[in-house]
């Protein structure tokens, strides 16, 4: 309990210092919030393009797709607030040698590297996404049961953890490959594939988007559970998958550090 308390205290300090730093740039917060709303409307209009030619894509109605878009904004927003700022910095840590300094700190290296910074200028995105989820689910036929709502919450929580571990895995790859900050851009691009249900992609892509870059679990599954396309029990699979994926990411991080020290010595 003592250790947990210590980590929690440090986490609060991390968040506090980041927030204070970004409070110096208030305009950026307002502008980014407005921009988030712009991209939200943009996304709904893009979806409309399809529905001017058909009533459903692979069985997803317009209302259903709005729920999916909402989950996309929630997940992507949290990613940009909590995880991207840390992924953006890992290349710099390696290049400038800051990583050595971080490894010496009396905390777990994964904790310091992956949770040091938050970027609250994107904090409006998850809220906007929630609005879209509500709007979409009222348009979808058939009410939403309480069980589905609870299962949705579990699936969404798993999605956050998955995003965290995916980010950690990317950081590990950065340490291994000493690549520039391209990986963070890559994540921005790849998450775009979650704007549509993964069932529209071919079998090979679907497999990749389920297991390696698990957009299926991060976006499609929570949305499907909420609108009743998948049974509530699917959330159990989400939990099992997160546990496995998280373990792999943790092992990847440890082995990356082992290699890194090998380079240093």
């Amino acid at each position, binding site marked *: 309990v003592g250790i947990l308390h210590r980590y929690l205290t440090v986490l609060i300090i991390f968040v506090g210092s980041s927030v204070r730093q970004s409070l110096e740039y208030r*305009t*950026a917060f307002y502008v980014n919030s407005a921009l988030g709303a712009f991209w939200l409307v*943009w996304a709904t209009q893009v979806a409309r393009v*399809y529905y001017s030619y*058909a009533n459903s894509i692979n069985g997803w109605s317009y209302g259903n797709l709005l729920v999916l878009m909402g989950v996309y904004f929630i997940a992507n927003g949290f990613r940009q607030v909590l995880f991207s700022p840390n992924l953006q910095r890992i290349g710099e840590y390696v290049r400038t040698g800051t990583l050595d300094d971080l490894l010496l700190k009396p905390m777990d290296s994964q904790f310091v590297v992956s949770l040091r910074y938050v970027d609250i200028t994107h904090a409006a995105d998850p809220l906007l996404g929630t609005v879209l989820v509500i709007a979409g689910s009222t348009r979808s036929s058939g009410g939403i049961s309480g069980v589905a709502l609870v299962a949705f919450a579990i699936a969404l929580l798993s999605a956050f953890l998955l995003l965290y571990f995916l980010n950690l895995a990317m950081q590990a790859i950065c340490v291994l490959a000493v*690549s520039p900050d391209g990986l963070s851009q*890559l994540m921005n*691009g790849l998450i*775009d594939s979650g704007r549509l249900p993964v069932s*529209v992609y071919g079998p090979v892509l679907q497999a990749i988007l389920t297991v390696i870059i698990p957009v299926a679990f991060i976006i499609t599954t929570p949305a499907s559970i909420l609108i009743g396309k998948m049974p509530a029990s699917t959330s159990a699979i989400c939990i099992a998958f997160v546990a496995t994926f998280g373990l792999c990411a943790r092992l990847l991080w440890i082995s990356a550090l082992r290699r890194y020290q090998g380079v240093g010595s």
Partner: protein
Amino acid sequence: VTRPLQVFGTLVRAYISVVLEHPAAAFLYILTSVFPLVMLAGWLALLRGGATIRGWQSSGFVTYYVAAMVVNQLSRTWVSDTWEEAIRSGTLSAQFLQPVNPVSHYLADHMAHKVVDSAVIAPLLIVAISISQDLRFTTDPLMLILGVLATILGSAMNFLMALCCAMVAFWSEQTGQLYQVWVGIGAFLSGWIIPISLLPKVMQDIARFLPFLYTLGFPAQVLSGQVRGTAAPGAFLIGASWTVAFYSIYRLLRRHGMRHFQAVGG
């Protein structure tokens, strides 16, 4: 006249070396804009079962979106972000002290990326064409040449368009976001989201006279053989006019912006 060109040539070569420092990154950058493929997947899902949409079959969509992805790769630019960053960090002040126009650094960087990207894309494209039966680019040599020219024009225009936006950074700190909105609105009219021939007629007519189409959709249509040769002269004329217009706007903004910038600098 040759001296500035020599300097510029050296700059481009230098920036190519910088890009090649991370060869793997050049490959990864292709994956940073998978959006056209996402749109494509949506259309293909709608077409499953052999339907057509306004005469478009799956091969038409595949060819168009792959062409759009390639053209985008060769015309996208970050100049509005990097210029703003250079102002914020003070790098730009130092660049103004050099006997070279600072913009030539950004243009050389843009061109260096395009040279490397072309070299990366070409083999990938050849493999893709030989594997996929749906990928049917134009085989007419004249149209191919026109397509390449249209892509170069589009790349130049896109750079100038972003450069105009970059100049706003002399007055505002939110240039990156301004450019995002500009690009976001343009996406509906440029063919980034949907081929413009699938837009309502009114939108098509508007798009034809705005710049966005010529940075992306038009070159993509030419390369995928979806435009008649007779339409090309008019399109090139409009595209070239916008390019000249953006250059003039850039000059104007820069002249006024410099005064403002020096005032800030003290």
